[in-house]
């Protein structure tokens, strides 16, 4: 279309009528690339007749005005924005808290790992009872020999 042609296309009655039919009689609404050529053509007798005809529907369309937004609507939308901002701030704090808790947990795990790696292995004081052990000592063959020597 016209937008692709840098210098703008030549304007004739057919193209001018097609533009007026689509965009109306006001050249400000027309595609920028064709506006200058269309404005030049609009001063011709044919151009004026086409613009006049298109202008009738434009005038009708212009007469359809919409009431501006009420204060109540502005207020309601702004309150909605406030609620959203508060909610987002809460979410941010929640994520921040979660992040801090995560960092704390990671620190604790790292500390525990470090302690485990650095601390030398303590000798086990755990006494493993074998089959000959009693609460009073070893009741194995040597003990029996001792009793005999008495």
């Amino acid at each position, binding site marked *: *279309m*016209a*937008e692709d042609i840098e210098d703008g296309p030549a304007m004739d009655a057919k193209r001018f009528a*097609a533009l007026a*039919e*689509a*965009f*109306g009689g006001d050249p400000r*609404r*027309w*595609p*920028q690339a064709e506006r200058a050529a269309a404005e030049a053509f609009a001063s011709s007798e044919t151009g004026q007749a086409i613009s006049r005809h298109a202008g*009738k*529907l*434009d005038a*009708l*369309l212009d*007469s*359809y*005005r*919409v*009431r*501006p*937004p009420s204060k109540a*609507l*502005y207020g*309601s*939308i*702004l309150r*909605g*924005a*406030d609620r*959203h*901002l508060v909610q*987002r*701030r809460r979410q941010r704090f929640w994520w921040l808290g979660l992040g801090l808790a995560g960092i704390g947990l990671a620190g604790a795990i790292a500390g525990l790992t470090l302690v485990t790696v650095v601390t030398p292995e303590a000798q086990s004081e755990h006494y493993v009872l074998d089959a000959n052990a009693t609460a009073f000592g070893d009741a194995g063959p040597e003990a029996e020999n001792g009793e005999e020597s008495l």
Partner: protein
Amino acid sequence: MSADPDEELIRRVGAGDPAAVQTLVARKLPRILSLAVRMLGDAAEAEDVAQETFVRIWRHASSWRRGNARFDTWIHRVTLNLCYDRLRRRREWVTDDLPDVADPAPLPDAGDETQRIEQALQTIAPRQREAIVLVYYQEMSNIEAAATLEISVDALESLLSRGRRALQMILAKDGVHD
């Protein structure tokens, strides 16, 4: 692509700046509301659509990045989609496959000219109405309107021509337009 005049504002809104929120509402609400009113022909529904549009703006403001579209184009698309949802719910949805010739029945006796235009707009195919509303009332250029509707500028021109012809036919039947 030219700079987006809303980019800095939406960045501030995304950062939670209350002044930016107020500026954005003041700047965009009249445009969003007028678009919705003209698409739906119902002020109360249009207000609901405007509120929903802003909820989406608040939700996306912090992550909004300019891709191929300006912020204004994006909010127009959001508003139009919400309008379509409501039109669909009203069973007024007309697909592109259906004939886009306006209903030949005369308009109901309307009180004044504005009401007749409003009713005539509601009678034409939604896609044609969309094109007319964006170019005439939202004062978008043909390139911006085509981008909003995600169609080529040729297709936009065709929609506008058919829409205007349909309006002329309806209004002529009603004795408003000769």
